[in-house]
């Protein structure tokens, strides 16, 4: 039980439905940027998306090939471990299910990898069943580089560091391996509703 902070009243969010805001989060209309390093700028001609690792045959798509796959537009709430949540964000992209279709694998985990060296790990089932996308559009516009464009992983049910910016592929793995922030003490799974911010939460 936390003691009362003398003189603190707080600013309730009148518009936010409490059922949509995980514990310890506040709602913002801004779209803050958090990255560990400079924003990479990869030309779309050079860009590919790959599925590698524990698969019979690695697969790869060029930017153009990716655009020719079925596109989905989804409206979801996103939750950053640094405490902000943004409700009703609209993204356009390709369901990870579409990319995994026809791939035989014994993997139980994925390690997403990005330009700039960023990685993040997730159970495979968390990117299956309509829960994850390779998103290249935000609010009807191409995704800005500082927000992860040309494309980022979108896994809105987990803290947003799992939605790797500048994503270039998924490595399917039989064994779990911590990604970038997970290796620096952030939670391995990152469920915002259980407030799994840091290792041990």
């Amino acid at each position, binding site marked *: 039980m936390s003691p009362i902070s003398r*003189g*603190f009243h707080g600013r309730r969010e009148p518009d936010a439905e409490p059922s949509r805001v995980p514990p310890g989060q506040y709602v913002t209309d801004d779209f803050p940027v958090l990255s560990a*390093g400079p924003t990479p700028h990869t030309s779309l001609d050079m860009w590919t998306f790959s599925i590698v690792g524990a698969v019979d045959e690695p697969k790869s798509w060029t930017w153009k090939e990716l655009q020719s796959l079925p596109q989905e537009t989804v409206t979801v709430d996103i939750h950053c471990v640094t405490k902000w949540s943004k409700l009703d964000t609209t993204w356009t992209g390709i369901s990870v299910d579409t990319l995994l279709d026809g791939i035989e694998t014994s993997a139980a985990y994925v390690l997403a990898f990005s330009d700039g060296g960023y990685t993040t790990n997730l159970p495979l089932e968390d990117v299956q069943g309509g829960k994850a996308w390779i998103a290249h559009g935000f609010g009807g516009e191409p995704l800005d580089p500082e927000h992860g464009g040309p494309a980022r992983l979108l896994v809105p049910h987990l803290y947003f560091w799992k939605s790797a910016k500048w994503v270039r592929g998924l490595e399917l793995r039989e064994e779990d391996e911590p990604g970038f922030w997970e290796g620096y*003490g952030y939670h391995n799974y990152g469920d915002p509703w259980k407030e799994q911010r840091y290792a041990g939460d």
Partner: protein
Amino acid sequence: MERTALRGRLTWQLASVVELVPETARTRSIALDPPDWPGHRAGQHVDVRLTADDGYQAQRSYSIASAPEDEHLVLTVERLDDGEVSPYLVDELRGGDELELRGPIGGYFLWEESLGGPLLLVAGGSGVVPLRAIVRHHRAIESRVPLRLLYSARTLDEVIYRDELTKAESGDEVHVRFTLTREQPEGWQGYARRIDRELLADVAWPADERPLVYICGPTGFVETAADILVSLGHDAARIRTERFGPT
């Protein structure tokens, strides 16, 4: 890349406020005495949690301003006009109050001597806070790693730790440069514009000396500084960034 995982669980604890120091019109330093502090590394942050009398809670992250060697754990907080937690910390909190926090947090945006250098620290506004911890740590351990700090603020009055950072300048080892973007006092000798390619090329180590770079500030500032340094030939993998504020 060095990987040092945080050990154990980060539990909430109540730290007494032992001293409050106004730094500028908008910022205040809060010296704390957490009962169970495992120590931190320069550049890390803590989570602070406030609780209203009806149980409503708000959490935010704040950079640690003190060196690991300092007597107290110090946070320097800037009041955001539309903020929920920062106005309380800057205007309401009093000596003797207790503040709930947990940490230290963050394993990447930090410097310790084993990481080497030379060091280039680039601060925009209150982004100077974690970099000031690095400067203090550097001095406390009497590091010989060459260090350059470039600090961009709007006006001289908004420069946090002005005297301390000015005095940190020492011989060939530590260079501190300020740029004031909005207003300069008469006779100002420092830079007087927003960071640009020429300014950064002037202050930064040449790319072939492979400096380790830490940039902290508002997003636009960090994006600009990082993009320019990459275009000057700096290795993106040696540039660490921390950003705050709306886009």
